[in-house]
């Protein structure tokens, strides 16, 4: 039994209890979970926000102390370790917020103490905070965040944050692409810890999007069918990256029965649509309406077709915890509701349908 974190066996029991509510009471017994306590995602979110509030209070109370970032960071880390040792909390939100902010403060203090640091070194130092926190607390979001910040380190190495022309954007895109492919390949191997799987899943989702973002930033323009001059690879790269990942992720996601590659495929679809925005020359609203209808029709037909399991794949609810999914749907519908129409003197209608969320729903695709 480890005080630092649950053992792989204990972690699997915790994941089982979270994943299958009907089996929770049997799974969450002392000798199986080692007394470790987790949180539902809703309470984890609240605990995380409370943790951020607490971290800001610690920082604020040390405002006038020399080396305040280092002191505040150390205080937060000590508090986190005490909570983990005494309360045996894991994936609860509160310790995650304190730990990542604490390490972030220490990293920021180190950067402030550096004498004229290279921009790449600054980014690498800042990336260490979520990386170490993610590895310590087995948090996949932090490790994915570290990878994204790390891509800035690649882009900024030897360059300057103030001179865009000297950013190595294509190098950063290729680094993200390589890491995404590596994560996709490594995800096929068996891992004892579910959290290691989750970390690879986070990279599978985040890295293709980051690669696309860097390639888009590096590209001189969007590809067009009726282009006046031949368009180089740099123009097509923002489309090729997500297109390749969509294909690979759908195949591997279905074959491995894993959700992360399928989520990555959905995210890459939005990226591909943005990359090909100038291909047809249609106005933005027609593209949104047509492609939205195509996506809606495809999803409706697929859902209908998979009601009966085909090759084991189904669109039905299969008993996993879905209470909070219902709440998300309710909140999503509320947020999608158009706001009040025009008031006196307002010339144009601003229906604002779907202003919140959704690719392109706000007119910014």
């Amino acid at each position: 039994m480890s005080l630092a974190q649950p053992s792989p066996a204990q972690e699997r029991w915790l994941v089982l209890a979270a994943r299958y509510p009907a089996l929770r009471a049997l799974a969450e017994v002392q000798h199986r979970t080692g007394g470790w306590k987790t949180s539902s995602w809703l309470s984890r979110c609240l605990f995380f926000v409370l943790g951020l509030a607490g971290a800001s209070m610690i920082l604020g109370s040390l405002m006038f102390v020399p080396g305040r970032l280092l002191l505040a960071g150390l205080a937060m880390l000590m508090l986190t370790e005490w909570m983990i040792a005494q309360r045996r909390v894991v994936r609860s939100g509160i310790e995650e917020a304190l730990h990542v902010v604490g390490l972030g403060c220490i990293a920021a203090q180190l950067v402030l103490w550096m004498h004229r640091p290279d921009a790449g070194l600054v980014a690498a130092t800042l990336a260490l905070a979520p990386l170490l926190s993610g590895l310590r607390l087995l948090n996949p979001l932090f490790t994915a965040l570290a990878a994204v910040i790390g891509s800035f380190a690649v882009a900024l190495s030897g360059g300057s944050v103030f001179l865009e022309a000297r950013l190595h954007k294509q190098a950063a895109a290729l680094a993200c692409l390589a890491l995404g492919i590596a994560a996709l390949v490594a995800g096929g191997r068996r891992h004892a810890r579910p959290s290691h799987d989750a970390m690879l899943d986070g990279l599978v989702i985040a890295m293709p999007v980051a690669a696309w973002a860097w390639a888009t930033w590096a590209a001189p323009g969007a590809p067009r069918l009726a282009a006046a001059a031949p368009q180089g690879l740099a123009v097509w790269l923002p489309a090729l990256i997500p297109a390749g990942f969509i294909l690979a992720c759908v195949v591997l996601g279905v074959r491995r029965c894993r959700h992360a590659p399928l989520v990555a495929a959905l995210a890459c679809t939005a990226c591909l649509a943005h990359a090909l925005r100038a291909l047809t020359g249609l106005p933005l609203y027609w593209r949104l309406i047509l492609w939205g209808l195509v996506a809606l029709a495809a999803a409706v037909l697929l859902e209908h077709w998979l009601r009966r399991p085909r090759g084991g794949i189904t669109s039905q609810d299969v008993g996993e915890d879905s209470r909070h999914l219902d709440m998300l749907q309710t909140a999503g519908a509320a947020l999608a509701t158009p706001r009040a129409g025009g008031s006196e003197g307002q010339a144009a209608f601003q229906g604002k349908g779907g202003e919140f969320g959704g690719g392109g729903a706000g007119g910014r695709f």
Partner: protein
Amino acid sequence: MHTLEAELRELRAQPGADVAAVDRALALESGALFSVRRELLFALYAAALVVAGGVALLVRANLARIGPLALLAGILVASAVCYALALRPRLQGRERGLGLDYVLLLGALLASAAVGYAEVQFRWLGEGWSRHLLLLALWHLATAWLYDSRLVLSVALTSFAGWLGLEASLARLLDGPRGLRHLGWRALACAALYFAAALWHRHSRRRPAFREVYEQFAAHLAFWGVLALGFDERTRWLALALLVALAWFTGRAGFVQRRESLVLYAIGYSTFGALALEAQLLGRAFMYEFGLLTVAAAVLLLLRLRARLKEYAP
């Protein structure tokens, strides 16, 4: 990849285990069964938003070129098609699937866009232009009842709150104390109405799924209303009393109904209300120290309450 098959087999051999639930979990872990419901949910929601957003942009971009009646007719026809498609399974004696749930949501969003556009363009309601939101809310409520749709009910409740002037935006925080006070009382009134509706659904047992939607809206609106009142020094102490009472009532309801979300709302909102009050009353010297104590107390209380909630779980 990881698998929980070994653990599930151990559970299956244990006396008192729900064998059917374990077998279903084993099928999922072994890959014999794989649900893509969540991915489809995300895709459906995103697609509905994209179409609704495209329609909004179409209207804005073509106001001068396409006749307003033609545009309005087009949107209404599209909305009607969505409603008709969603009605088909019911007419055929089948249950409506997830996909058609979101087609119905798209229909509702298009109807909202059409009515809002019509009001801006033709000013049928004159000075009472905002009443179109009330009409929309009633329409959505009626269609939510007819289709038994929680998603459309959410749209109805949001439209009604919008008619009362309860729009969630950061700009509202800059309205000043008077504006926030009015917002606060309206939010509380709206919350009371939604709570009454939830009680009715609970006692009448009709459309039982609607009850939770009403309760969620009521809880959030009530807390937001109280927090808004707290920003005005004339209603600050009244807001504090209301916050304590509301937190106690909501937390207790969460315990009785075994609903963690209500307990979380009670602790979360009351913590942030307390922090806001401390920020207003205390100087910078002690604000952070008191705030840290407040957050620590909230965390400990929440850990304790969650443990008790699990202890009493059936």
